[in-house]
């Protein structure tokens, strides 16, 4: 719809007073305590300035005072709705630094946990995106299913959201009896709900009207801003660390990387970003099914490392495909049991920086949708 750009032109010729609106930090749809300072000309957004830091917790500095094991609960709190995925690159980085090889069973459980959590994360992302567009019912359908996923994760790790489950060289606990059946049931349920939400929300004409052709992020801009995850793939760039730089055992699974196709609207608009997430849920289901089939039953998952982890001197960077994008940990070790420096590269933070670029010239209501389609978590943005 080129209507909007044209509208913008017409409006800009009529000089009018501009209004500055504060969206957030207590606004209902900023997905956390993000403050956007928006300048609007009537309904058209002319400038957006994100203000961060309302949730800053000194994560990186704090880590320097803690042992390697104590850092893991804090890492859960970065992207608190996909905590399993967060822990993974951290423990992988330490394993790389200490040159530990983990057993097959551990790898499979890690993959299943991460993919379950990815589904849970995308369910929230799609649900809140629908909520931003005004559709309330799909939100609760997704939350109902997410609850089942969280039950599995709770049975595995003992916590609903902040799992503290991955350990350097292993896991905190073994699988419980009936785990495989639970996972397969969940996969079925996720597919059922997705099919329903496709009709109810994704292919609804009003929803398409609202989200297609809005917030177009071209591949060049996406790459220049170092976007990653569904934001990048929504722009049609086929980049997924699970395929392009296979870590762990992702090379053993058969799955596709969904990208924005421009089925309705233009490649890189909000609808496509959202659709990538919906398709990724299906791919995660496929990975879980394969992993369940291949997973060995016997084997120990407890780590075979000393309780006090002392990696050798050196530095390491490890990245993994988080549901939100690329999450990387840069760890400098000085040979003691406390890290010299930990730097987290949060996907939400990088993806958020693209907001001022892509939301100019759209309507105020679109800005909310663009923000929702980028799917940020303020825990990761502010750290």
């Amino acid at each position, binding site marked *: 719809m080129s209507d909007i750009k044209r509208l913008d032109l017409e409006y800009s010729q009529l000089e009018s007073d501009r209004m500055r*609106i504060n969206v957030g930090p207590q606004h209902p749809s900023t997905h956390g305590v993000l403050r956007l300072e928006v300048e609007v000309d009537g*309904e058209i957004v002319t400038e957006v300035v994100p203000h961060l830091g309302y949730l800053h917790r000194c994560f990186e500095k704090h880590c320097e005072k803690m042992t390697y094991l104590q850092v893991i609960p804090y890492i859960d709190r970065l992207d608190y709705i996909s905590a399993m995925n967060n822990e993974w690159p951290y423990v992988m980085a330490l394993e790389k630094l200490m040159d530990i090889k983990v057993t097959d069973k551990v790898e499979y459980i890690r993959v299943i946990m991460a993919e379950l959590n990815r589904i849970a994360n995308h369910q929230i992302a799609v649900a809140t995106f629908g909520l931003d567009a*005004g559709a*309330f019912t799909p939100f*609760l359908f997704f939350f109902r299913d997410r609850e089942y996923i969280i039950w599995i994760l709770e049975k595995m790790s003992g916590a609903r959201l902040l799992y503290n489950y991955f350990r350097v060289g292993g896991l905190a606990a073994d699988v419980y009896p009936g785990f495989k059946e639970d996972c397969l049931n969940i996969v079925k349920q996720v597919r059922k709900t997705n099919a329903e939400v496709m009709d109810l929300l994704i292919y*609804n004409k*009003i929803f398409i009207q*609202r989200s297609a052709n809005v917030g177009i992020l071209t591949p060049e801009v996406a790459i220049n801003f170092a976007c990653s995850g569904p934001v990048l793939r929504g722009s049609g760039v086929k980049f997924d660390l699970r395929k392009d730089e296979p870590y762990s055992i992702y090379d053993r699974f058969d799955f596709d990387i969904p990208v924005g196709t421009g089925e309705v609207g233009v490649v890189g608009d909000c609808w496509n970003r959202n659709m990538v997430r919906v398709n990724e849920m299906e791919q995660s289901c496929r990975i879980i099914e394969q992993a369940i089939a291949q997973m060995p039953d016997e084997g120990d998952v407890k780590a075979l490392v000393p309780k006090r982890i002392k990696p050798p001197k050196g530095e390491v960077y490890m990245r993994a495909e988080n549901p939100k994008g690329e999450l990387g940990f840069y760890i400098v070790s000085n040979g003691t049991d406390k890290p010299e420096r930990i730097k987290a590269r949060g996907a939400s933070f990088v993806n958020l920086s693209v907001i001022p670029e892509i939301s100019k010239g759209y*309507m105020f*209501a679109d800005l909310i949708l663009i923000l929702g389609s980028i799917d940020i978590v303020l825990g990761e943005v502010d750290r």
Partner: protein
Amino acid sequence: MENVNFLYDLLGKNVISVLLIVSLPLMFVLVYALIAILAELKVSAWIQERLGPMRTGPWGILQPIAEVVKLIQKEDITPDRSSKLLYNLAPFIIFTGAYAAFAVIPFSEYFVPAGINLGLFYIFAVGSISAIGIVMGGWASNNKYSLMGAMRSVAQLISYEIPAAMAVLSIVVLASTMNMQEINKIQSGWFWNWFIFGGPGTLAKLWVIPFTLGLGLIYFISSLAETNRVPFDIPEGESELVAGFHTEYSGMKFAMFFFAEYANMFVVAAVLTTIFLGGWNSPFGDFMQGPFWGVFWFVSKAFTVVLVQIWIRWTLPRFRVDQLMYIGWKVLLPLSFICFMAVSLYVMLK
């Protein structure tokens, strides 16, 4: 003017009967609003596989009363820099606009508060009062969200009144009267005599039925927009404008907005019932036909329409401002003109 009130027959034309006539719809509105709020809570919950409120009374049926009590207890905040008079007046004006429309709504053959001949015209006239109230509230709150909500709301109300008026006008052409009571009387008999099925007539009316059905749909969609319901709840779209024009209101004033919204929902549902769905007529000829059954039929039909509004609310996402205008001016208006011309042609040929 014909005497259409059973209370006049009963008590004669005096102050008491007039007061009773004025207050009966008010009682009705209060009771209805409580039921509608409960319906909204429960229908939304059931659609989303929840149970909804369950604690207040059996199955939570006292929940609306609890909410009203809560709202009464709340602090009534007036923002410091607001324009006090307008700010305090706005909720009352909105509610007055919604309530005034009840004057001409024919609940039964023998009960319509004021059986004036220009009933439909009157409804559109007083319906626009709420736009003034919304602008007053939005402007006086001295809040940017409220102001934007108010601006959107007025644009929406004005543009959607035209297709709604066109739909109503078509029925006026068919019925050749603006008196709502007369319109109801014309539609008596079986349900195929309703105006949504072309009104009473011979088989020759078959070709006009699609147009009258379309008119019914157009009126229904416009009425959704006029009452600020989803998918047209842009003035109060909570994800963008927090709560739109009533962001700053709390306590009883907020409750007034709330009541006005539900009263408005009933008004548009009542108009739809009256002019399209046969009003107080039984759908099955003489079966259960009569003044008392009339109230039953009228209220149940109107409430069904309200339930459909609620159902739609929990199904659809929200439009954007420019799309709303597009639908109002470029879709509904031309279509209503087409239907209007078709209906006029039908009346000419008849």
